[in-house]
């Protein structure tokens, strides 16, 4: 089973890009499954269903989305194996700009859009900088020059990855992505595999449900800003 993690800031076009790439794979009659990780609510499962793609949704609710992801992903792979998918894709929004669901030895895609501004590649952490493939979306609505500048900024942030322009509406570039997905990593189980980066380690009183503000309420792993 080919397993690919797709991440990216909210509303960057992850679902549209996946749908367009899967449309390109249709003639090959591959069995595709998608795992959608989100925080509070999502309707993306309906979009997948409309294209006859099986999907499962995981909502992290009040938990750290990344911790939720990593505690579930190996079960997800087992689920994928049981259903004999040829391609399994996990889709998750990168919320704090640092974390990413990227796993060593699993093809990692980051989706980012042209409208985010040229400083965004700098602000996004390992999700972008350690991805194998960076997909840039919404290229049809900004100028060629801005696209070129943005691509260079991404190249600087991630010198090694493949940079691909995909249009989530027209599907331009989706066949290229589909080809890369088809050549993605073969995975049977994730037990024993490792994340590319460590997850956020807070474990403070607020992790345990504290809501009051003030020094005496801050317990555990607390880091302070330098203000003066």
């Amino acid at each position: 089973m080919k397993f690919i993690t797709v991440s990216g800031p909210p509303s960057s076009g992850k679902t549209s890009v996946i749908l367009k790439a899967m449309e390109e794979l249709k003639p090959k009659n591959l069995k595709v499954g998608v795992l959608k990780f989100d925080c509070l609510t999502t309707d993306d499962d309906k979009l997948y269903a409309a294209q006859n793609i099986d999907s499962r949704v995981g909502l992290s609710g009040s938990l750290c989305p990344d911790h939720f992801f990593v505690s579930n992903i190996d079960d997800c792979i087992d689920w994928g194996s049981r259903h004999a998918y040829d391609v399994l894709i996990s889709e998750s929004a990168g919320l704090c700009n640092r974390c990413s669901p990227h796993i060593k030895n699993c093809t990692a895609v980051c989706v980012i859009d042209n409208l985010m501004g040229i400083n965004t590649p700098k602000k996004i952490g390992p999700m972008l900088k350690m991805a194998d493939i960076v997909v840039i979306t919404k290229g049809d609505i900004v100028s060629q020059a801005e696209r070129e500048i943005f691509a260079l900024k991404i190249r600087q942030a991630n010198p090694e990855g493949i940079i691909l322009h995909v249009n989530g509406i027209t599907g331009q570039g989706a066949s290229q992505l589909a080809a890369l997905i088809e050549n993605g990593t073969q995975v049977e189980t994730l037990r024993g595999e490792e994340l590319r980066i460590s997850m956020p380690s807070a474990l403070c009183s607020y992790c345990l449900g504290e809501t009051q503000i003030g020094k005496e309420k801050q317990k555990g792993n607390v880091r302070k800003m330098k203000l003066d």
Partner: protein
Amino acid sequence: MENLTIEELLSRYPYAIEFFDVNGLPIEDKQKTIQEYINTLPYVFLEDMGINHQGLFKRFLVFMQRMEDIRKERNFSIHSLTVLGGTDKNGKKEQDKLKISMGEIICIVGPTGSGKSRLLADIEWMAQKDTPTGRRILIDDCIPPESWRFSIEHKLVAQLSQNMNFVMDICVGDFIKLHAQSRMIDDVDDKTLKIIHHANELSGEAFDLNTPLTSLSGGQSRALMVADTAFLSTSPIVLIDEIENAGINRKKALELLVDQNKIVLIATHDPLLALTGDKRIVIKNGGIYKVLETTESEKQRLEQLTEIDNVMMQYRERLRKGELLD
């Protein structure tokens, strides 16, 4: 490079500063070598970045290599593009060979869904019988290196369309400078003036260095996009998509691009634009149905059409001035 101090590194390779910037690395002591510098970074700092010392050093080396690749290829140019035909949606063979040379204007016509985008995607991807059409793309009569597919400095096609807007909150001069710097071009000021001069010629409504990018009118934006693409885009092929009512002098726009040795592809059904091209590719059912050369009598027809267009333009201008059209 590993033996240079950071100071020497920055003076020899000015773009190296971007490595520090994009990774949020503060430079305090410029007398260290890059390896020494990386070794002094605290573990916790790197953990926040999700990387270790070794990984960061490796990223630095790859960064420098990539930037050098981009600098070397700032004049990516090609002489010709050849499409070796594949099959249409029904598996029928299409026209088997189409060669387009630098400086040519080629129109692409065909109904929506006929496969115009697919042809373009094949060119962009430099297809080698690995797309549904089975087409093969040759550059200067050779199979292009596969690495070109993913290198931003070998991007074949630049695009201009009616739907595109400027989104950066920056003035025209700074914007052009940023684009020129991203291409590692030296004569930035000269290029900037040239681009603004040509853009103003295309739109007829003058703007200058200090005009905010986002306050340009539709026509001014289009004009700047054309001029900027002509002088600063890496891509040797320019695709123009539905730019019928752009409010710019289309003939001059095409001349400008062709003068900069671009291959211009236009997806259009506007007869005025379609007849300006040297050839027309007719797409039908996913394949190249035929390639027409613009005939002599078509060129005469173009003159008539241009006259009609001029009349329309005059009327438009008079309306703008508040005159009567009687």
